[in-house]
Structures are given as structure tokens and as C-alpha cells.
């Protein structure tokens, strides 16, 4: 974990409510895809945890959806400097992917799949990506994943773009050695049930500090109590205990 000040280099909408922000600063503490950063905003008490989409040199890319006061404030920023804690969370473990991993991202669960995809392809893996959205107007980053060299399937719930259905409908048709996923909890549960291999999934919870001090985001797992912000947000399929 490291605290740093990041300069906004780019901040633009990808869809009606999803924005991409590129920041320049010390990215040295970010060690794995699937980690997150925690951003301090004017007039708001708690920092905003946002997943890392990509890191390249001193550039940090985040993609966020406007859902409340904090993200609305971020969306309105044209320039400036942000106080950010980086290197939070465990991130995905790439060493267990096998040769043909599948990456499943749903909605704002798509961004962390990007850095993961880039790194897995960098290791010579044959990567398949499934990007799930509700409808065509919500789709983003399809081309970016294709440019990395991944085989990309887009699903929409209403069938207005790509394959009609959920990411799990695409998953059922695939042959893969391992899965990585991030998205809303109902999607994670569906992937958990549908997947035929081991895998890792990233969870989201309301956090206090984001670095393991306050115990605000604890959960129960097969291997004991864990903090989503510290021992998570990525959990292995085998350790997950669904709360309901």
C-alpha cells in the first residue's frame, strides 16, 4: 500500500454512465491485476474504492460507473490532482491459469479483466474473454480486449448486441482450463455454479478504510474470516461461502 498524488490526464465517458479516467503518479505499489485504489474526494468523508483497469509506467487507468455522489464528482473533473491509496487488495493469481483461461466481466466488473487479460496474453496464454452487459448502449472495451489478442464474446441480457443472455450462457459453450471473474454478486454465483473448473472471483462490499484496519468489509470463507479489502477482493472458488 502506498499513498500518492495523481494528476488527471484523461477523463471521458465510455457510455452514458461509465467513465474512463487516466491518472499519472507513482504506480509502484500496484503489483497484480484485480487490486484496487481508494480515492479521496472533496467534501466526502470516506475514500472511494475503484478497481484498477490497467497500469503502464506511471499511468493508472480506472473505469468507474456513476452511482452516487463520489463517482458523480469524479465524472465532473476535467483536471486536477487526487489523493489515492494504491496497491490495495490481493489481486488475481495468474500462476494457476493453465493454457486456456476464460475471463468473465459483468458491467463495471469488466475493467479489472483488462490488465489481467494483458498479462495472461503476455505470458503466452490463449485467453478467452466474455463481457456481459444488460443492453447494447452499455457495452464498452470490446475493441480494447480484441487488440490485446483475446477471443472476445459480448453478451447482452436483452439480445440487442452480441450473444443474447448472460455470461454463463457463453461459458457453457466454452472449453477452458480456469476462470477469472468480476461482476455483480448474482453473476458471480451463477459463474460459481456453471463453471466446470477452478477459478477466482472478485467481490465488492461497502468498505471503511480499504486497507484492513477497520474490519468493515469482513466475510466468512471456508478457510476462516477474511477482509474483502485485504485478503480479498479476489477469492478462490474453493474457499467461498455464500452468505444466503
Amino acid at each position: 500500500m502506498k499513498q500518492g498524488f495523481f494528476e488527471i490526464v484523461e477523463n471521458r465517458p465510455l457510455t452514458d454512465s461509465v467513465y474512463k479516467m487516466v491518472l499519472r503518479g507513482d504506480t509502484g505499489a500496484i503489483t497484480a491485476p484485480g487490486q484496487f485504489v481508494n480515492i479521496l474526494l472533496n467534501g466526502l468523508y470516506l475514500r472511494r474504492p475503484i478497481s484498477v483497469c490497467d497500469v503502464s509506467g506511471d499511468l493508472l487507468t480506472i473505469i468507474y460507473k456513476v452511482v452516487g455522489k463520489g463517482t458523480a464528482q469524479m465524472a465532473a473533473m476535467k483536471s486536477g490532482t487526487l489523493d489515492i491509496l494504491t496497491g490495495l487488495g490481493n489481486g488475481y493469481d495468474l500462476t494457476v491459469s493453465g493454457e486456456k483461461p476464460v475471463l468473465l466481466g459483468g458491467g463495471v466488473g469488466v475493467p479489472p479483466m483488462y490488465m489481467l487479460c494483458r498479462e495472461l496474453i503476455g505470458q503466452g496464454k490463449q485467453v478467452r474473454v466474455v463481457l456481459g452487459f444488460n443492453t447494447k448502449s452499455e457495452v464498452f472495451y470490446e475493441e480494447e480486449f480484441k487488440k490485446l489478442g483475446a477471443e472476445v464474446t459480448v453478451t447482452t441480457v436483452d439480445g440487442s448486441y452480441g450473444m443474447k443472455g448472460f455470461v454463463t450462457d457463453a461459458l457453457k459453450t466454452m472449453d477452458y482450463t480456469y476462470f477469472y471473474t468480476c461482476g455483480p454478486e448474482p453473476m458471480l454465483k451463477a459463474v460459481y455454479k456453471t463453471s466446470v473448473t477452478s477459478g477466482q472471483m472478485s467481490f465488492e462490499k461497502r468498505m471503511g478504510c480499504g486497507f484492513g484496519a477497520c474490519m468493515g468489509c469482513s466475510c466468512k470463507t471456508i478457510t476462516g474470516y477474511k477482509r474483502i479489502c485485504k485478503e480479498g477482493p479476489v477469492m478462490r472458488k474453493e474457499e467461498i461461502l455464500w452468505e444466503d
Partner: protein
Amino acid sequence: MGRLNVNLCGIELDNPVIPASGTFGYGYEYAELYDINCLGTFSFKGTTKDPRFGNPTPRIAECTAGMINAVGLQNPGVENVISQELPKLKQCFHKPVMANVSGFSVEDYAYTCEQLDKEEQVGWLEVNVSCPNVHGGGMSFGTDPKAAAEVTAAVRKVTKKPLLIKLSPNVTDIVSIAKACEDAGADGISLINTMLGMRIDLRTKKPIIANKMGGFSGSAIFPVAVRMVYQVANAVKVPVVGMGGVTTAEDVVEMMLAGATAVEVGAANLINPYACRDIIADLPRVMDAYGINTLSEIIGGAK
């Protein structure tokens, strides 16, 4: 003696700044960021007799200038704290540490304190009779002078270490409770714990926190804390540890003027993990600005 030194119940502190229990774990998350030996001491995560997972999530809600938490005393239990956590704490912190204790019965409190009393690094016991987040738990002891005195007396019997009782602000007469604890053998009073609060999500029309209510902390509660520290410090002879919304070096000075011998910093650590280090570094500047030579001379200075 430096300008920042204070003496808390017979133990010398390099400065009065103490991260509050529940916001600093056992120190090692913060030790990744800075050398935590710059602190006066810190109060480690509230410890109970048995391991506790705590409350369901969500446990956190944001407020204007503060936050509500309902963690519910998640901790691995006193046995694991002693065998697993204290050895790790010792690696990164080399001063006497404050052990924070909670319980569900007088016997629980006494048992947990007796175990922690045997630990050499524990300098003070801070007994929490004020957790708002546990049903039938700590706060029922902290809202009644007799019950608070009963816990104090029971713990007093099992330890010779300085004993602080941490009080709740969610009471009608804080002074009577503080005095009852003093009479029962407390060496000091810590206050205030969080204020009972609640937020409701307009979209779901339900409480944000799974436990519905929780403890409100952060800079918003600072004036309430100053007032209560002032009231208690003027009513008891033992030292008072002041806390509640402290965020800056100015806040520390104000809390000491109200009567605090040492000052705990809670929620501020969660937003700025360097908060305590920064406050300590800033204290000499603030003292100079207000013509203060040593901090120990200003304790209770506001009459």
C-alpha cells in the same frame, strides 16, 4: 522531557497522540506505511474472551464529516490475540501498548483483563463499557453508574496495571458514571466512544447498515467530545483520555485544554492512514502558533 511529553497514569508518553481502538488493528497494517514508534502508544482492537465474527455486513455508512460503523467487536478472542497478534505487534511497536477489552458479563471482562495483564508489553488496560454495536453487550454496563462500577471493581482485582474505563456518550449523565468508575478503582477515564447513529438508503428505503444502527464517529462529533471531556475532567481527579472526531493537531490541543491528558485519534486514521504521524509532526508548529511551551502545562487549561 520534550515539549510533547505527557504522563498517563504513571507511564511516560513521548507525545499524547494515541490511535483509538478499532481503527488501528494491531498496528502492523500501519507499520507498512510508517514507523509507528512515533506514536505515544496505541489502543489495539477491542478484545473479548471468545473469538467473534461480529455483525453482518454492510457495517459501514458514510455521513457528513463522519461515518457510522457497526463492526460488532470482530476479534480473534483473547487467547489468539495473545498467541498470534501480540507477537506480531511486538515486531513493529516497541513501547507499552494499550489493551482494549470488551465483554458481555462482569466475569468476561475480568477474565480477559486477567489474561492481558500477564502480557509485558501491555501498559494500560482500557476497558470498553460503551460499545453501541453489540446487543446486550458493553453499553448496558456503560449506561448505568452501578454496572460500570461493578465492571471496574472486578477488573481492578485482577490487574495492577493502569486501568482506564472507556465511556459511552449515549447517556444522560456522563459525570455520574465517570465518578462511579473512579470510586471503584479506575486510574483514568477514556471518552467518548461513538454516538449511536443511523442512515437510511433512499433507493432501498432500508437502513444502510445491516445492524440498522451503529456508532457515529469522525470530525462531526468533535464538539460533543470536547464538551464531555471538559465535564468529566472537571469532576474526577484521575486523568482523562479524550477522543471523538480528533483530526488535526489543533484538535489535540483543544482536547487537552478541555482536560485530556492524552488524546486518541480514531476515524481519521481510516481516511488518512498517516493521520497520527502527521498530527504529531504538526504539534510543535501549532504550539508555537498559540504560545504553548509544553503540552503537559495546558491540560485542563480552559476554565
